[in-house]
């Protein structure tokens, strides 16, 4: 009789990690430097991978291991590299000034987290997923919050690169939601999605690169030629 994992512990761990992820996200909102936000993103993605692994471990859902592995490799490993490389290639300046000042934006992200909880409340039904349940609720809320905050980051930040980061963290939110709700999508879909994310980042990277060399500034709020 092998060691039977105790769901309770699992839930604790996952909730803790999820909380951490959320904290990281909010930190990213407050973060000024690009490099450090990339780092933050890397750590966050790593945590997600870990969450996935934990879930896989506690539910003997083998295919989630793959998802976890992919996450760690892609989001925690490959993408940050790429982005940093890109950053060096363009050699952009450090400081980035958000449209909304830091305290306020942190406040807003708090509000968004709240919204996340409200939304999660509205449709989360423990009884349906009885045994594995408990991890759902908080995690789901966190996922939604991640999504919204990522979106907010995209609205808020001026630099092309940080918008990409926002998009990526938003994707993280989706990933978290996916695994915490349904233990991942069917494998084909998972792989497809990962592939897409990868390509998307490549495409965006190329664009960022070109913008960088065309406008010698990464400030996308300066891109206002096309208007009525």
């Amino acid at each position, binding site marked *: 009789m092998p060691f039977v994992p105790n769901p309770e512990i699992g839930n604790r761990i996952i909730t803790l990690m999820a909380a951490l992820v959320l904290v990281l996200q909010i930190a990213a909102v407050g973060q000024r430097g690009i490099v450090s936000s990339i780092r933050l993103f890397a750590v966050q993605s790593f945590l997600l991978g870990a969450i996935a692994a934990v879930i896989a471990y506690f539910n003997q859902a083998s295919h989630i291991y793959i998802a976890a592995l992919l996450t760690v490799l892609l989001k925690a490993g490959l993408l940050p590299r790429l982005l940093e490389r890109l950053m060096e290639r363009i050699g952009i300046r450090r400081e980035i000034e958000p449209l909304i000042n830091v305290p306020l934006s942190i406040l807003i992200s708090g509000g968004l987290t709240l919204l996340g909880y409200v*939304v999660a*409340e509205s449709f989360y039904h423990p009884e349906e997923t009885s045994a594995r349940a408990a991890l759902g609720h908080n995690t789901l809320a966190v996922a939604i919050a991640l999504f*919204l905050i990522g979106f907010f980051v995209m609205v808020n930040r001026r630099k092309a690169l940080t918008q990409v980061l926002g998009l990526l963290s938003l994707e993280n939110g989706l990933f978290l939601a996916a695994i915490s709700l349904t233990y991942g999508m069917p494998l084909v879909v998972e792989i497809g999605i990962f592939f897409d994310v990868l390509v998307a980042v490549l495409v965006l990277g190329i664009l960022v690169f070109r913008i960088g060399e065309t406008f010698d500034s990464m400030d996308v*709020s300066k891109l*206002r030629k096309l*208007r*009525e």
Partner: protein
Amino acid sequence: MYILSVNTGFALSVAAYAVGAFGSLACWQKPSLARRICCNFALTGAVLGGLISVLAILRGTPVAWSVPSGIPLFAYSFSYDALAGFFNLALAILVAAVSTYSFGYLKEFEGKRNIGLFGFLFNLLLLSLTVVFTAANAFLFLIAWEVMALAAYGLVIFYHEDRETRRAGLLYVIMAHIDAGCLLLGFALLINSTGSAEFASFRPLSAQLNGGQQTAAFVLFFLGFTIKAGVIPFHIWLPAAHPVAPSNVSALLSGIVIKTGIYGMARIFLDVLGGVPSWAGLLVLIVGVVSAVLGVLYALMEHDLKRLLAYHSIENIGIILMGLGAALIFRVAGHPTLAAVALIAAMFHTLNHAIFKCLLFLGAGSVLHSTGTRNMEEMGGLIRPMPVTAFCFLIGAVAISGLPPLNGFVSEWLTYQALLAGFGAIPGLTRILFPLAGSMLALTGALAAACFVKAFAITFLALPRGAESRNVHEAPRAMLIGMGGLTLACAVLGLGVTWFLPVFDAMTEQLLGQRVSSHLVSGHGLVLSAGVRTSGTVSPLVIAVGLLVLMLPAALLVAIGVRSFGRKRGPVWDCGLPGLSEENEYTATAFSKALRMIFAVLYKPRREIQAVFDVSPYFPKEIRFESEIEPTFEKRLYAPLQEFLFRVSSRMRTIQAGSIHAYLAYIFVTLVLLLLFGVRK
């Protein structure tokens, strides 16, 4: 008796138009061939169509048939009844004249303009017109309706190089689209309550519609049809668009195209809906009065011959609406025979106006053709170089002024009788409206007479005022034949009205279940009588003959006088200052001066006089005088509307300011809101 059945005949005439359209388009590189194809096939179609309409009217019973369309949603279904027959008859008469006229008129296009295209649009217009009059299915009706508008648009902007023309065309087609929209809504309303687009399926409907739906349906259709008919205040496109088109097209536009609005009202209000509430009838009557009076008043101030005619179309549509409104009211009030008389008045005036307005536009066309200007102040003395045109125009002028013994008089007389009868028939205070409307009709008639005195005299009489009208020539024969036919029609419909009346029996029976022509004729078929309630009578024929007879003794006296005491030509009395020249002539502006002063409230005239002085202010070297009236509706109603639209639109443009953050923010906010919306049940 019936050589060919109605529907095959109809198909043939449609086919003729179609061949004319595509044939002339096909050989657009050979102008003269294209011209022949265009005119010949139009003529053929007209002859066939006329034949069929006569057949249908004689037979009386409607012929309905249906053609499978390529669109699975709908079938093309037609119904050729008396009403359709009547309007097709009018169409046929006009087209016959106009296409004959065009043989000569289009010659000048050769080498200059694309006659193939013209022929295509021209025949397409005719085709859509006859389909509009015959369609028995909302879908088909709307398609034909809009094709008609688009073809007309194409013809209006035929001289699209001219900026004014383009603007006029746009105004026209946009208004046309608005009215199509109204009809679309109206039909959708009806279709929704029956589930079928067939007119036949609407007929039983009138009972089921609740008050709100009835009102909505009436308002929508009324809007749609009045816009098309160019009724004030929806008229602004008409005086803009009709003058700029080639004259043979203007003749059709004013002659028959705006009448589709009248047709629509008759078809929907009387036939399909089977009557409307009495307030609606009153509305029609009042709108008619307003647009008759205002139309003629605006016409008086015009010095552009074709614009003047266009405004008279507005006026006459008003007169027609008086009759129609009376018919609607009587029908609701339960006086079918009276309604029939009123309807006959309206329809007869429709036909008459079609004929003489077409005639006048063709006349204006040949004047334009030889002088090259539309401005009356440049014309004058044309009666000598172009006598035939002048004569035709004179007849048209007498007819449109409603003077006896021509057709205009007869239909206005019938309208008077209908209105007078209304006073006796309708209870309550509203009855006062009828004689008042009658007096306004009198005002309209008199003003129209004044206006056409101006139009004819300034154009054709006295000395040429401008270089354009100095050395001009008579129009080619084909054009004269076209006009001559219509002139004859004016006389025949006036003098022979008593023999023509039975034509209306089938229609009145179909729409009101009454055959009244026998009531309307008395005195050995010579006398037209008001029929039922009031017993007024008139006999244009006797009047005409009588006039001739009575002129004989006068002529005799004059002849004697002239024989014994001679007659010589002398100079005009020039107050002793020798050298009376065209500068001394009375101008159109001067002629309308008195009325401009009297109705200053309406016109808000603006005049400026600049005098250039030489030595002392008492001897001005030259004086420039210019005067213009305020286009009230354009200025007060439409301009602000457009202004508003554009201001709002320019405001809106700030939402597309190019900032990606703003764009993302839109989505973000929408998302948050919708999430909240989704959360609360």
